[in-house]
C-alpha cells in the first residue's frame, strides 16, 4: 500500500526524471548520428543557463531563452567543425577526451565571462506549488516535464515523418552507405549537434530556473550517464524510460535510504542501478549489441 509520502516522492521523481530525459535526449541525438560521446553535456546545459540568465536581466524571459538556444546552436556548429570533424574515425578515447577538454574549456570561459556568482533565472509563471490530492508539485517541474515531452514529440515526428529525419536515421545506421546514396553526412552531423544545442539550452533554462544558475549546474550532466546507460545510448525512447527510472530511484533513495546512512545516496544510487543493469544487459534496456567483424 502506497502512503502519501511515497506518492509525493514518486510524482516528484517522475517530473525530475522527465527533465533528466530532456538532457539525455541531447546526448542520444549526437551519439545516434555521429557516434560521438558527449562528456560536455552538463557544461552545455550550464552555458545555456548562463546565457539565458545574463540575457534575462535586460530582455524578457522568452527572448532570453531564444537567445540562449541561438547561442548554443552556433557554438555546437563551431564545435563540430573545429574539434569533432578532425577526430572522425579516431579511437573512442580521442572523442571522449576531446569532449572532456571542451567541458573544461567551457567551465573556465563561462565563469570568466559571466562571473562565478549564482544568478537567479525566474520563469514568468505561478510560483506557488500545485496540489493534486496529497501530492505537492512545483510548477517549474511541471513546465520542465511538459517541455521535454513536447520536444520528444517533435523529435520523434522529425525522425519518422520528414526527409531530414530519414536522412539522419540513414546516417546513424551506416555512414558509408548513406554517403553513397547522396546524403551529405557532414551536414547531418552538424545538424545533430545543432539539435543538441537546442535541447541543452532548454535544459539549461529549466534547470537554471530550478536550481539557480552557477557552475554547479554542470553537475546535472553527470546524471545523464546512468540515464543513457539504462536506456541504451542510441535509443530516444530509452532516454525517457532511463530518465524516469533514474528520477524515481533518486527520489525514493533520498526519501528512504538517506535517513538511514546519513545522506548522499541521491547521487550514488543511479550509478549502482546502472552497474546492475550493465551486468544483466550490457547494452542497456533498449540498446542493440553491435555486430562485430574482424
Amino acid at each position, binding site marked *: 500500500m502506497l502512503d502519501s509520502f511515497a506518492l509525493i516522492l514518486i510524482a516528484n521523481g517522475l517530473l525530475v526524471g522527465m527533465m533528466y530525459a530532456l538532457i539525455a535526449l541531447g546526448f542520444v541525438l549526437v551519439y545516434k548520428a555521429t557516434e560521438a*560521446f558527449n562528456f560536455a553535456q552538463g557544461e552545455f546545459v550550464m552555458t545555456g543557463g548562463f546565457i539565458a540568465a545574463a540575457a534575462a536581466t535586460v530582455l524578457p524571459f522568452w527572448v532570453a531563452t531564444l537567445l540562449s538556444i541561438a547561442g548554443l546552436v552556433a557554438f555546437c556548429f563551431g564545435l563540430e567543425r*573545429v*574539434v569533432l570533424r*578532425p*577526430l572522425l574515425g*579516431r*579511437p*573512442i*578515447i*580521442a572523442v*571522449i*577526451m*576531446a569532449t*572532456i*577538454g*571542451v*567541458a*573544461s*574549456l*567551457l*567551465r*573556465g*570561459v563561462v*565563469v*570568466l565571462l559571466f562571473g562565478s556568482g549564482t544568478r537567479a533565472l525566474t520563469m514568468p509563471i505561478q510560483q506557488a506549488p500545485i496540489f493534486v490530492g496529497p501530492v505537492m508539485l512545483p510548477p517549474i517541474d511541471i513546465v520542465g516535464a511538459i517541455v521535454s515531452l513536447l520536444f520528444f514529440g517533435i523529435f520523434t515526428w522529425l525522425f519518422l515523418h520528414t526527409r531530414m529525419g530519414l536522412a539522419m536515421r540513414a546516417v546513424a545506421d551506416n555512414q558509408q552507405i548513406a554517403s553513397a546514396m547522396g546524403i551529405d553526412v557532414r551536414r547531418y552531423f552538424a545538424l545533430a549537434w545543432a539539435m543538441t544545442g537546442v535541447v541543452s539550452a532548454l535544459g539549461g533554462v529549466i534547470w537554471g530556473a530550478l536550481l539557480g544558475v552557477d557552475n554547479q549546474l554542470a553537475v546535472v550532466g553527470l546524471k545523464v*550517464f*546512468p540515464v543513457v*546507460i539504462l536506456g541504451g*545510448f542510441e535509443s530516444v525512447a530509452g532516454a525517457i524510460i532511463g530518465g524516469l527510472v533514474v528520477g524515481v530511484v533518486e527520489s525514493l533513495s533520498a526519501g528512504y535510504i538517506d535517513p538511514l*546512512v*546519513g545522506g*548522499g*545516496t541521491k*547521487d*550514488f544510487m543511479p*550509478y*549502482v542501478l*546502472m*552497474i546492475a543493469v*550493465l*551486468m544483466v544487459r*550490457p*547494452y542497456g534496456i533498449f540498446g542493440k549489441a553491435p555486430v*562485430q*567483424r*574482424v
Partner: protein
Amino acid sequence: MIYRESGTFKTSYAADMALYPLPLSRWTLAGIFLVLLVALPLLASPYMLTVCDLILVAVVGAIGLNILTGFAGQISIGQGGFMAVGAYTAAKLATVWNMPFWLAIPAGGLMTALVGVFVGIPSLRIKGLYLAIATLASQFIIEWVINHVTWISGGIQATVQMPPPRVFGIAIQSQLQFYFFLLAFAVIATVAGKNFARSRLGRACVAVRDRDIAAEIIGIDIFRTKLIAFAISSFIVGVAGALYSYYLGIANYEQFGLDVSIDYLAMIIIGGLGSVTGSILGAAFITLLPVVTRRGLAAIGPMFAGFDIDGVLPEVRLCLFGGLIILFLVAEPEGLDRLWRNMRTYFRTWPFSY
C-alpha cells in the same frame, strides 16, 4: 635517448627489443640519473622540489593508467577512485597495524588491484563507452563508500593521518627526503612499464586494443589479458595513491575526485597513449601547467589595472587545460612522445635530412 647511430646493425629480434640499443644509450641514462640524483636536488629551490615531488607521484600514476588505457585500450575514468583505495589501504595499515611503508604501499597496491579486477570483470561483455561509464561509476561508488563507511574514513572529515615513512630508521619528512623516496618509486615504475611494453603480455595487450577479435583468433585469451592489464595497472595506480597520501601526510578522499581521473587521462593523452616516456612527459606537463599559468599571469597581470590573479587563476587553468587537450588531440594525437621522437629523427640525420 640522444644519439646518432651510423646504421642498422641489428641481426636478431632480441637486439631490436633491447632496452639499450647502443652502449651510448647507457651513458645517456647515466647522465640523466646524474642530473636527477645530484644536480637537481642541489640546485632546486624548495618550491621547485615540491613541484618535482608532485611530478614523481604523477609519473607513477600516469604509467599505471597508461598500461590500462594506452596499452590495453580499456578506458578508465576511475583513476581517482583507484588511487583513493591504495591511499586508504596504506593509511589504515600504517596507522592501525603500524606497518612500515615497504609493506603498506604494496598492500595498498594489491588491494587496488583486487578492486581493479572486480571493476574489470564487466569488460568481458562491455567495451568502449560502456566500460568508460562503468569505471566512472566505480569512481563515484568508491568515493561514497570511503566517505560513508566510518571504519575506513575514520569519522567526519574522512581523513586519516599518516605517519611519515621510515627508511633505515630515518623519518622521511622534508621535501628533499621525499624527493629521493619518490624518485625510487618513479624509477621502479618506469622500468616496470618499459619492460611490460616489450613482454609477451604487453604485446598481447596492444593486440587486444587494436583489434580484439583478431587477437582472439591468433590465440590470445582476451578476458585474461584484460583482467591482468586491469590488475597491473590498478596495482601501480594504488601505489601512486599510497605514495601521494604518504607525501601529504594525510589520506583524504577529496584529493582523489573525478578531476584527478580527468587530470591523469589528460596526462596520458598529452604525453602519448601507449608510451612510458609519454607518461613521464605528460605527468610533468600537466603538473607544471598550473605553476606556469600562475607565473605567466603574474607576469602579464600588472599590464591591466585591477587585475586579480587569484580570482581568475582556476578558470584560466581550466581554459588552458581544456584547450591543450583539444589541441593535442586534433594536431598531434600521439602526444609529446611523438614530438620528442620527431625531434630525434630530425637531428639524427641533420644537417643532411635526405
